[in-house]
């Protein structure tokens, strides 16, 4: 019966924190942010390696930390499994030994049997006797994971678990983790700076910056609908622009340079409000050269092509819109569309921006994530 992890932390220093998140049983939540954002601190606080000034950490009914009551359980007394970024395997113990030692007070034979089961679970069966220095990075990571699971933890914490391995191994480990979590029913909190990884693995994403949790939602929602320009920059949103809401008759439009774009109206941004806005690169539709444009296409934007970046099967095309000088619009197209339309730098291009995909945000807050 898996329980929900609830975390609320606050402190002024030495590392400022103002974080709030929760992870339900069976859910995998990615905590995402740039280096130094405080993600590892949040993880350490949950594990009991750091005691914040204020806050509360509880898993189901068990309260592990409560600043108000002065309660802070030692890591040994919290049912957590933590995979360190550097794995932190015990160098003087074998793979089996590393896992068995985490199994608490049980007879040695029983611990070893269960440890062997865990090794099989992470596809390392047969490597019991190897020492950490004799294992590859990917193998070490799996041992670290198995060790974290040895305690039957109620919460699994992973600190950038795939950062230290090569691309191919990373993909493999990510697939294994996805397969593994179906078997585990515990809340899993994964810390990463890799947006793509978070998007692939997580049910939900939490964006953290300078110790503050800024947005919490499904990856698709966070990436498509960032709550502020800061989050947009943190999530590497390519198309981030400024504009102003204008009234056009009975409707509201978005003024962007010389263009008036149709948008899905939002009551919190009345006419006259300066706004920031984003649109996903894939939500722009190319006007084909060989077919004449149809006048009803929404939000037409004309410009000239800056670059064509080929990324395997897709390509990113940057456009300098004539009506919004200085801005660079990036659209994503499949490679064969790029070829078929002979898109090349310097060529004129026309695209339509899907009105419902234009996401508005307030301009307040720092725009630079530094």
């Amino acid at each position: 019966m898996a329980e929900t992890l609830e975390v609320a932390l606050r402190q002024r220093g030495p590392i400022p924190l103002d974080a709030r998140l929760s992870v339900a049983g069976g859910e995998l939540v990615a905590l995402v942010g740039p280096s130094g954002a405080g993600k590892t601190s949040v993880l350490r606080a949950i594990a009991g390696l750091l005691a914040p000034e204020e806050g509360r950490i509880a898993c189901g009914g068990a309260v592990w930390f409560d600043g108000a009551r002065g309660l802070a359980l030692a890591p040994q007394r919290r049912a957590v499994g933590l995979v360190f970024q550097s794995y932190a395997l015990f160098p003087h113990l074998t793979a089996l030994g590393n896992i068995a030692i985490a199994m608490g007070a049980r007879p040695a034979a029983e611990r070893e049997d269960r440890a062997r089961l865990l090794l099989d679970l992470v596809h390392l069966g047969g490597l019991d006797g190897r020492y950490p220095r004799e294992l590859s990075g990917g193998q070490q990571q799996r041992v670290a994971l198995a060790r974290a699971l040895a305690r039957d933890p109620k919460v699994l914490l992973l600190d950038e678990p795939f950062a230290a391995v090569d691309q191919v191994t990373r993909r493999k480990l990510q697939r294994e983790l996805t397969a593994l979590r179906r078997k585990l029913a515990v809340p899993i909190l994964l810390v990463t700076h890799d947006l793509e990884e978070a998007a692939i693995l997580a049910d939900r994403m939490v964006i953290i910056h300078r110790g503050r949790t800024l947005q919490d939602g499904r990856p698709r929602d966070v990436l498509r609908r960032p709550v502020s320009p800061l989050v947009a920059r943190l999530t590497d949103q390519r198309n981030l622009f400024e504009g102003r809401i204008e009234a056009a008759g009975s409707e509201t439009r978005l003024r962007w340079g010389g263009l008036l774009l149709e948008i899905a109206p939002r009551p919190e941004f009345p006419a006259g409000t300066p706004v920031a806005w984003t649109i996903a690169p894939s939500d722009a539709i190319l006007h084909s050269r060989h077919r004449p444009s149809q006048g009803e296409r929404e939000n037409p934007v004309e410009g000239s092509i800056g670059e064509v970046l080929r990324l395997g099967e897709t390509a990113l095309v940057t456009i300098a819109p004539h009506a919004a000088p200085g801005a660079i619009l990036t659209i994503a197209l499949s490679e064969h569309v790029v070829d078929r339309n002979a898109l090349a730098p310097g060529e004129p291009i026309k695209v339509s921006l899907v009105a419902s995909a234009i996401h508005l945000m307030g301009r307040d807050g720092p725009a630079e994530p530094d």
Partner: protein
Amino acid sequence: MMDWTALRLSLELAAWTAALLVPLGIVAGRALAHRRFAAKSLIEALIAMPLVLPPTVLGFYLLAVMGREAPFGRAFEAAFGQPLAFTFAGLVAASLIANIPFAVQPIQRAFEAIEPEIREAAWTSGLSPLRAFLEIELPLAWRGIAGGVVLVFAHTLGEFGVVLMIGGAIPGETRTAAIAIYDRVQAFDDAAAGALSAALLAIAFIATAVLFALGRPLRERRRG
């Protein structure tokens, strides 16, 4: 003619000093490795003092504390019925102080060399602080600890100034091999001095060899 008594005294002094300093070295070395506190630099400097002090200075101050007229010496005599200075017990006491840096520093380095994350991994794997210390830290630090023991042992064998001032070179009681060598040289007995010197040289050589063997990294040896 080999002065076996003097050699035995030297070995006993070295053994007692090493045995008593190891627990102290582990407690102090570990505390210094893991903690950060305001007076830490001061304490580390104090611990290092016997390394830089001339042995006679150390002997002078120790005698001022341990002599029969001094408060500590008097207290000891009252408690145990015999004085501290000019006895083997006094030598052990002086040797303990003179060897503190040789015990604490290597052990401190050994514990410092253990990455903090390893200890944290032990705690988050459910090990109590005591189990983490016994099953994770000690096995990883044992080389440094053993190195400290050998260093203390070897250094004590060579102690001269402090031993002479505190002990008074009494045969069978405080005249260690190092003192005996000096004594035999003064008595024009070069043969006896040579025999004792050769014995100490051999022991020192063995000690250095052991120290170097301990220093070899884990990687180079296959562990069963």
